[in-house]
């Protein structure tokens, strides 16, 4: 198992130190120029907007996913399975097809604009599609289940009498959430955020289709380097740098958390 996981990674790492051949092949002249290229101002802008969109996606997923996961976890047992199933059903459809469906909803003569016009909220169709907003909607839609599932797992384990105890000790709804529910479900929140942030940072189908291919995210950049520019070494370098960054951030988090855990167990 581990071998299958690591071999492609090592190949990507190796290629990232090579350079592009004249006809798009890989030339094994080991150097660091690809990594130097990463700091190109054009690329930096792409990293910036990607991170911004991924952060916004994560925040929105958390904001929408928490109440959803909470109500599922507090529903009667026999309903919980049904709700979870409903959350997961979209996964059974091809991601491409689901993303196309959003084009039909968001385009100027689409469902959303028709509803808005019929409700009299706007007289003219709004340009929803091919903007950062449509990418954001697509990403939130696509990755919301990745947020809901770990949150549900954490909330389901939460002892309801602890929540009642906070309420009994004069805490209002906000304080019950902030001082008790959130700290006790933090592992689920962190897992959900990582599960949403990482794939949305590297997403390329959604920005391609809903962003109209005019805005690039890191995922598109990598795809572009590999498939259009045929510069595998640079594409590999970008992928590897991205992965290393995410990995480092996750490790830094778990290290501090692990320290706290040991402290809690009185080691």
């Amino acid at each position, binding site marked *: 198992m581990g071998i299958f996981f690591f071999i492609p990674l090592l190949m990507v790492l190796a290629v990232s130190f090579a350079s592009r051949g004249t006809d798009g092949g890989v030339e094994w002249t080991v150097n660091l120029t690809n990594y130097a290229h990463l700091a190109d101002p054009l690329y930096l802008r792409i990293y910036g907007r990607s991170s911004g969109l991924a952060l916004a996606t994560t925040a929105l997923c958390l904001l929408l996913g928490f109440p959803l996961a909470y109500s599922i976890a507090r529903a009667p047992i026999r309903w919980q399975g049904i709700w979870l199933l409903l959350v997961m059903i979209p996964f059974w459809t091809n991601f491409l097809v689901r993303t196309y469906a959003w084009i039909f909803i968001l385009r100027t003569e689409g469902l959303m604009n028709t509803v808005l016009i019929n409700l009299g909220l706007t007289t003219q169709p709004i340009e929803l599609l091919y903007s950062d907003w449509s990418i954001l909607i697509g990403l939130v839609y696509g990755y919301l289940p990745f947020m809901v599932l770990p949150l549900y797992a954490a909330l389901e384990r939460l002892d309801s009498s602890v929540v009642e105890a*906070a309420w009994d000790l*004069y805490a209002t709804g906000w304080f019950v959430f902030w001082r008790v529910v959130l700290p006790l479900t933090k592992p689920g929140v962190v897992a959900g955020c990582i599960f949403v942030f990482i794939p949305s940072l590297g997403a390329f189908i959604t920005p391609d289709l809903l962003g109209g291919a005019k805005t690039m995210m890191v995922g598109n950049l990598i795809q572009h380097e590999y498939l259009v520019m045929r510069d595998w070494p640079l594409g590999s370098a970008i992928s590897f740098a991205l992965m290393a960054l995410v990995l480092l951030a996750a490790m830094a988090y778990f290290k501090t958390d692990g320290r706290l855990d040991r402290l809690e167990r009185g080691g």
Partner: protein
Amino acid sequence: MADTSVELRDLVKYHGATLAVDHLSLEVRSGEFFSILGPSGAGKTTTLRLVGGFERPDRGEILIEGRSMQNVPPNLRPVNLVFQTFALFPHMTVFDNVAFGLEMRRVRRAELRSRVSAALDMVKLSDKHSRLPSQLSGGEQQRVALARALVNRPAVVLLDEPLGALDQQLRQEMQLELKTIQKQVGITFICVTHHQEEALIMSDRVAVMDHGRVLQVGSPQEVYESPTSEVVARFIGLSNHLSGRIVTVDGTTCTITSSDIPTTQPLLVRRPPGPMEANRVMLLLRPERLHLSQDAHACRFDNAVSARIDKVTYTGSEMQYLLRLSDSVLWRARLPNSGARQERFRVGEAVFLCWNADDGVILTE
């Protein structure tokens, strides 16, 4: 009504289609240790949760210190609940757990500190204030839960099976300690338990509950020694039963006969208060009130019936006998182990069971 702390008026609560609390009325006095005792499923915990505000009654009213609790959420009630599972905040230290209620009520830092310290002193946990709940033993967690309630100086502390999660030995220690602390702080305690001995040891008054209704309210002595119904008698301690008929009644005593046992003389029993109309009655006798003898005349008691020993159990502190009075009547007797010179009986031996008129209780059917 200054000395009434909590008043429940005609409470009704359904859980789905089942009636959990059935027209329940109770009055709990200020500063008393009040226990609600009953088998599991009797509606005790539901009653406690209604007082705490976690559930709303379908009918009836709850008054705490004369104030109606209708539509008052738990965080605004002058009541704190000690949960059965303790429900300590696992991510907070002992100090922060105890301080939580004061913090939510925005008590100033200096006062908060001194009150939390005093509460931890009271439960003898001052040295563990920076521990997390997971680092404490069950008994210590129980104390934190108690301190977390007491520190707020509520009008009433509610305890849901407070000793249920503790082992036998710790339980007995905590029973006395809970009672001591309650007397010390003078706060009204309402405690729910299914453990009859615990209720008798700790409480000033006990309410016996079954099927959502209160069957009897009284001091531990009253409910144990003068149960008003068979259910109460059966639930609080072991008891022997014999159905019979009243033969004669005079000022303080009456006599009964039973067709269930072969007896020559009517049995003498203390007369229950009130008019004696019913003819058919039930005689209740506690196993520890019975005496055994081989000679009916040697035992100087009001009553003596013959029996055969069915089983003998040695528990260390006492001898327990199972006695057959007739084909349909089997009684228990518990005699303290008073040493080697005590008369011991063997299985199959014919003996006389003796007791005084005051030892029996009559229930009219």
